[in-house]
Structures are given as structure tokens and as C-alpha cells.
């Protein structure tokens, strides 16, 4: 099973969780939301490939 990494960002004192599948809230944040989401996706891919490699 794929590992789900949930990152988060801070904006105006609020914490936004970043699931790799994204949320409308993230898209609505514009630049910071899209950037954080893309980073979370990339990190998720990295984590999964790392885990895959370790298992090998």
C-alpha cells in the first residue's frame, strides 16, 4: 500500500493540511496553495519510491 504523506502550510496563523490528492481550498489559495500541493505531491512520490527501494 502507498504511504500517504500529509504536509501542511501556515497562512495568516491558520494551518492548512496538504493531502497529495489536493483540495479545493489549496487551489483557492493560489500561488502558495498550488506550490505547496506540488511540493507535497513530489515528496509523496519520493517517499514512495524510497520505500520501494528499501524493500528491494
Amino acid at each position, binding site marked *: 500500500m502507498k504511504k500517504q504523506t500529509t504536509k501542511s502550510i501556515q497562512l495568516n496563523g491558520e494551518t492548512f493540511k496538504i*493531502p497529495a490528492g*489536493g483540495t*479545493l481550498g489549496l*487551489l*483557492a*489559495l*493560489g*500561488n502558495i496553495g498550488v506550490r505547496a500541493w506540488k511540493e507535497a505531491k513530489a515528496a509523496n512520490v519520493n517517499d514512495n519510491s524510497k520505500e520501494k527501494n528499501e524493500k528491494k
Partner: protein
Amino acid sequence: MKKNKVLLIGWDSADWKVIDRLIAEGKMPTLKAMIEEGVKGKIATLNPPLSPMLWTSIATGFRPYKHGVIGFVEPDGKGSVRPVSSNFRKVKAIWNILTMEGYKSNIIGWWPSNPVETINGCMVSNMFQQEKNGSKIIEQENWEVQPATVHPERIIDKIKDLRVHPHEITLNLVSPFVPNFAKLGKGDDSNLGIISKFLAHASTVHAAATELMETEEWDFTAVYHDALDHFSHGFMRFYPPKMAHIDEVEFEMYKNVVEGAYIFHDMMLERLLGMVDDKTTVMIVSDHGFHSDHMRPIHIPQVPAGPAIEHAPYGIIVAKGPNIKKGEQIFGASVLDVTPTLLMMMGLPIGKDMDGKPLVDMFSDGRKATYIESWEKIDKFGGELVKIDGDVENDVTAALQQLIELGYIDDLNIENVNEKDRVKNIIKENSFYLAKSYSSTGLHDDALELLLEVETKSDPDYRILHEIVNCAVKTNRFALANEYLQFIRKEKILIDFHIDILDAKVQIGLNQPKEAIKLLNKALKVDNQSVIILLDLANIYNGLQMKKEALKCFNKVLALDPENAHAYYGKGLAYLRADEYEKAVEEFLNAIDRLYHFPLAHLYLGESLALMKEYEAAIGTFELVKTMMPNLPKVYRWLQDLYDLIDDPIKSRENASILGKMHLDKRTIICGLPGPKMEDALSMLKQNKVNIGKSFDVLKTQNLDVLKKDWFSQLEGDVIYLPLQYFPSLNSRNLNKFIFIKDSLEDTIEHMNKKAKIKANTFNFELMNNLNKIEESTKSWFGKQPDVDVYYLSNLDKLMEII
């Protein structure tokens, strides 16, 4: 001193009916708060309501036939076609003016803004978010930023990775729009792809806008989103309440899509408002509304721009800021007013040549608009179009493909149609839109000339033929109107139903009301729910002063469309003509409440109030009409008299002086049936040495061409006796006073018989019918002239006094 910033947000197709519902349900809290902190209103669109033309009017303050951006596609100058671009814009946009004045702008996604311009600031064009090559999607790893879509090039690096590709949109993101997507079969999920694309494009535009707002210095930011328009064209048919023809399962599946799109825009708005300080003025506008209720069409015409039938005539305008009123409504806004208002916000003068006006009522600080002759004449650098090097055909084809998918342009059949024909078709199509733009402002001559140039009967286009007939009627070219009408009928270019409605327009133009009524009643049997037919019918009855029939039709219209301002206005007129002034006032106010910029409703409201002896209120109303229709002599005549009545001779003289400068034809026209009273009236005028000329003889002997606009001015005399048959071709613009001598049909026939030495007891039914028709036709003509005063005289006691 730090300048106050302005943020302009464009939401294509945003409509109050949807927004009001969502706000009431607590689903658009950010917009709700913004409205409470500022002003809101309806914004009138232009005809034709096509987005690239409208958004260019919004960004320039000029009508399409002046700004030059027409249609969705344009010739590329190299023998082919391309999506509408900034290349054809003939006037300066707000960002050019701001560049000239040293302000920095961010312009993101504006339609059309490709290729970008080298303005002071940043520009990201409407092609930035495109990810297609023709009908094929370019995969994310090969997705390059196209040339000339970003200015300056240094910002490409920071915004290119903020683009969201449709393939990145997950089901997690689509599920708020289609909560039951899991129930969709494998072949039924194409709508999810469409939603993904709209969402990806909106997210890209929003991400670029927020990045530039956060990292670049700016005085003005404008961001345009087409997503509400696209979501609405794709899914408004599933919006509750369910339309009868919509499948129950599909309705349940997609009923939340439009709502989801509006909610997402509210979420994006929250972020934008969070990025600006209290000193920034924010304005949201849409270019038109979108029918979301029983006005939704069941069928979309299969013609280019056919989906525009779903557009509603009023969009939204909301503004808040340090110098903007709070919690108030503004009235009378048009898309043309946005740039003049922005200039006023920025403390810059407005070009007198702009078609729009500043919305001064939204400002709380009592500021006054300042003007210059024209921004076009000022020779300062305002940015220039970025030249495209190399071949960018792929990009152009992609954008064309998107327009085809949305139904805005015909499938250009790129493979099979030769380029020459494609260009010819586009020129014809755009000429049609340009003609519509002309005729929407009364320039029917220009429209007609253009249409006759592109229309060929060998390759007929029913929309163009239809418009030719309309314009021919408006310019009194009835022979031409009939020629095209007969052609349409003979070639069966339209079905009988549409031909009858068109024929009725010709008959109304010819002042043949009974013929028009017959045709419209026939059409009504085919579609008894047609608001257009019912309104036409009601207006004819109103012209004939058939109050009961008129009110019946207007009430039917209101049952179908309770917000129809024209129906309330018509009811007001019916009551006014029946001297029921209080009821008239109520109906005119109903009309104005729904459509504030309705000068004739204000005019007749003023008349009703004056006749009720509410002089102060009437004066206030006429003063307002003056600002809406400054060239209408009747208003000045009323004000001259009303100021006299309230003992304000200075103001009375002011209005008289304006009237004096209007070069009006001061002659009185006398008309009526050729009966004994008319003969007595003419004798009375002669006895009083009034120069009545010999107009009738002149028309007959000199064979004046009554189709020429100036035929009336060639007639001599202080009082003109004008036979009734000449009324259809009379231009009332400079005329003011008509005296209609009322005679009975029986007396007239007896009088005519006597003159022709026909036996007294001979009764000619044909003559009676003809005279009846002529009399009705004249009444119908008077009903269409808002600016003339008509005195109906049954006895001649007051004749000389009136003259």
C-alpha cells in the same frame, strides 16, 4: 505619497440570481461580506453579448465598433485565421493609459490579451493556461510556456510551475462538484474531464495572479476568469429546479456543478481580499448574466455563438474600498462604464470620446470626474504588442479547438476547408457581429450597409437575412425589407413561425397594426409562451390604445418572466394613455426598479407625475432623464413649463435656451381623415393667414423620394398638412407638434362622396376599411414616437391657440 491601489476581478457570466440564492444559503460568505462593506448593482451588457467583445469594452470604455475586437476568431493577415487577439484593438486599454501615466499594472488572463503588451508591469495572456495542441492534450512534462503569453520574460520562471494541468486534477478535487461521481459508468465520465479542465484553468489564472500580486509592485491588478461562463454553458441545464426535458439521473449527478463553481470563486475571492489592505479598492464585474431559471433555453441554436442565447442581459458589479459607499446599491451601470470608473478611482481624467460614463454614485467622498478630449491623442508610450518569433501554429489551433468545443465557433473543418473560404467565412461572421453592434446603438444604416456587403443570396445565412430585414424596417426601406422577407419565405430559410414574427415587424414598421396582430397571433398558436411575441403584440395594442388587450398580454409576459421591465413599462403606458396616472406611476416604478437605465420609463414617469400635479417630483425625474437622454427636446419642454409653474423663471429660461439651440423644426403638422372637420380646419388656418404651404401637391408633383431622410425638410409652410399615408416614412427626430383632427369615418365618407358627386346613400365599405386602416396606422406611428406632442382635436375651438 503612496497611491491607492485598485484590484479589478472579472467573473465572466456571473449572475445575481445564482449569487443571491447562494448568499442566502450562506454559501458565498466572502462576497456577502464584500457587498456589505461596499456597493452592488446590475451591469448592463451590450449586444451582441459575446465575451471577447465585451471584455474589450470593459477594458477600454468603447463600444465594439470603435475598439475593433469583434467575434471569437479573426483573420491572421497571412491568409488564415486565429483566435481573437489584441492585434485588432484600435484604442488604448486601461493598462496602456496607466503605463502612460507611470502606474504599474498586473494583467492576468484578460480575454483577449494575446500577444501580451510591453506595459509598465506584468501581463499574462489568456493563452497562458492552454495545454492543448489541436484536440490533443500536451502532457505535463512537455508543456512549455508559449511565446508572447508572458511579459516580462523574467517572470516566466516564477509562474510557469504554478500552472495546473487538467491531468493533475484528482477526483478529490472534482468531488465537490459531482459528489456521486462513483456511480458514473466508465464511458459516462467525460464531464469529469471537462470539469477538470475548467478547474485547472481557473487555478492557473488564480495562482499567477496571486504570485504577481505578492511579489511584484503594482498599482492596478486586473484578473479575468472565464470559468463561470464555461461551467454555466456546460452545466446550467442541470441547475435546480430541474428542467422538464432533463433526465432525472443526469440532473441528480450534475445539479451541484454550477453551485460548486460559484463557491470556488468565492474561495478564490477570499484569498484575493486577504492579500490587499484597506486602502485598496476592489471591484468585481461580469460582462453579462446567465439564465438560471425558467428563462433557460431548451435548444441552443446550432450556429456560431449560438450558446450566447443562454446569456442574460445583466451581469454583476460589486465594489468596496476607502472611498466607496457602504451597503448601498448603484444603478444604471453598463460594461462601458468600468474603465471610466477605474480612471476616476485612480484620479485620472476620462476620455470624452469614451462611450462609458464614470459611476460617480459609488464614491463616498463626493469626488468629481475630470475629463480630457481623448487618451488616443496623447503621444506617450503605453506598451506595444510583443512580436511572436517563429511558428506558434500549435498554440493557435489549441485555442480554436477550445472555442469549437464550447460551441462558440463552427467546427472550422481545418483539414478539409481551404483557408481562403475559412477567412471569408470568418469575415462574414464578424461582419454580422459588427452590424449587431451598430444596430444596438441605432446605427441601422451602417449595419445595413455592412450586411448587404457580405450577404450573398447564393450562400444565405438566416441570421444575416433576419438582421437585414430588421435594419431595413428601422431605416424605412420597406421595399428592401419585403424583398428579403419574400426571399426568406420562398427559399424556406426560416420556418413559418419565425417568418411570421419577422413579417409582423415589417408590418409594424409599415404601421399596419392589424396585419401584424394577425401574424403574431398565428405565431402565438405555435408558441404561446413566447415573451417576444407577447411583448410585440402588447405594444401594438398599446399603440392602438386598446388598453384591455395590451394589459392582458403584458400580464401574460409577467407571468412568464416576473422581472420583465418592458412589460411593466408597457402597462404604465397603457394606464398613462387612459389617464390613470397613479397606476401608471406604480408600473413605471416597477419597471425602473428592475431596469434602472430605462430612459423612457423615467420620461413617462415624469409625465405621469406632472399630470398628477406632483411638480417637484416630476422635475426631479425629468432632470434625471436629461442625463440619460440629453438630446430629447420633450424633456426640456416639460422642464421649461414645470419650472414656470413653481415660479423658477431662471431654470425655466435655462431649459428654453437649450431647446432653442436644438434647431428643431418648429412647424406644426396637421393631419387626420379628409373629412369635413379637416376642411374646416384648413379654412380656419387660411382665414387666419397661416402659411400652410401646399405640401400635398409638392409631394405629388415633384415626386419627392419619401425614402430619403430629408424629404420633409423640403416642404414649405409654417403648418404642414400631411396626408396620413406619409407617416410611415416620416422621421420624427426634429419634429415636435402634431394636431390630429378627429372626424368620424361616416362623416368623412359622406364628405368625400359629396366632393366626388356620388349619391348620398352610396356606402363604400372598401373605402371605410381603408380609412380605418390609415387612421389606425397613424395612431400606431404616434405610439412609437416618444418625443412628439400630439393634440387630438374633436372641435376646432383651440386650434389657433395650439398653433
